[in-house]
């Protein structure tokens, strides 16, 4: 298989989209964990 910029771009962009979405899940999860700690402190 020879290197093809379009093929590389398509595969790369697929994983960039998936990793970006997973990053949003991870960041939302971290924020929620902080909120839970604050809620427990406030009790």
């Amino acid at each position, binding site marked *: *298989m020879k290197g093809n910029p379009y093929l590389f771009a*398509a595969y790369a*962009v*697929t994983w960039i989209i998936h990793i970006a979405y997973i990053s949003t899940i991870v960041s939302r999860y971290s924020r*929620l964990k902080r909120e839970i700690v604050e*809620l427990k402190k406030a009790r």
Partner: protein
Amino acid sequence: MKKAFPILGVLTAMLLSYALYQALVVAPTERTMGDVQRIFYYHVPSAWTAFILFFINFGASVVYLIKRNPAADIVALVSAEVGVVFCTVVLVTGPIWARPVWGIWWTWDMRLTSTLVLWLIYVSYLFLRRFSSSGETPALAAALAVLGALCVPFVYFSIWFFRTQHPQPVMGGGGSIDPRMLHALLINWLAFSCFAFLVCWSRYRLEKLQREVDHAHAMRSLLDPSGSVR
């Protein structure tokens, strides 16, 4: 269940690596398009996965409309969100494939346009979920999801009903495919389906936790309306 997640994560990563190897190394090079045709192994499985997620969204929305079950509402939200991610992959990899093969990035033919409309319907569904605070939002969103699901068969069969630039479907399109290409395609679909399942699972847990925290905030406000912490 919590222990199963990392094991399934490792298995899915291995399956995705094997699928990538199949797509880039094992599958033969297509005669007319050359190596750029290998985009097919990411483009088509992403489309199939998005369609399945939109159908799950449809099923969960119907269950929610009938039973008002909160778990069904979460499944509907999660499947729509992950479905939009996969549909975005389809809409981005398609033009990257089209440019060297057709000489254009985009054409307003029925398959491409209907896929874009489908994506817009589910993006509007997510906007509705995100920005409307009415108690009836899940029911309204479920009704929109039913409309969106009606578009999925139209998108899939549009290349049969209309003359389009887009090629005929791999399955049931009347053409033939090399068995190694078919194997690579199905392995990639399986890998992306497992990956989608794991992402949905994580997102489901996150949404459930979010609702619990929102409920705790609401209870706290009810018990202490001044906002001061005792």
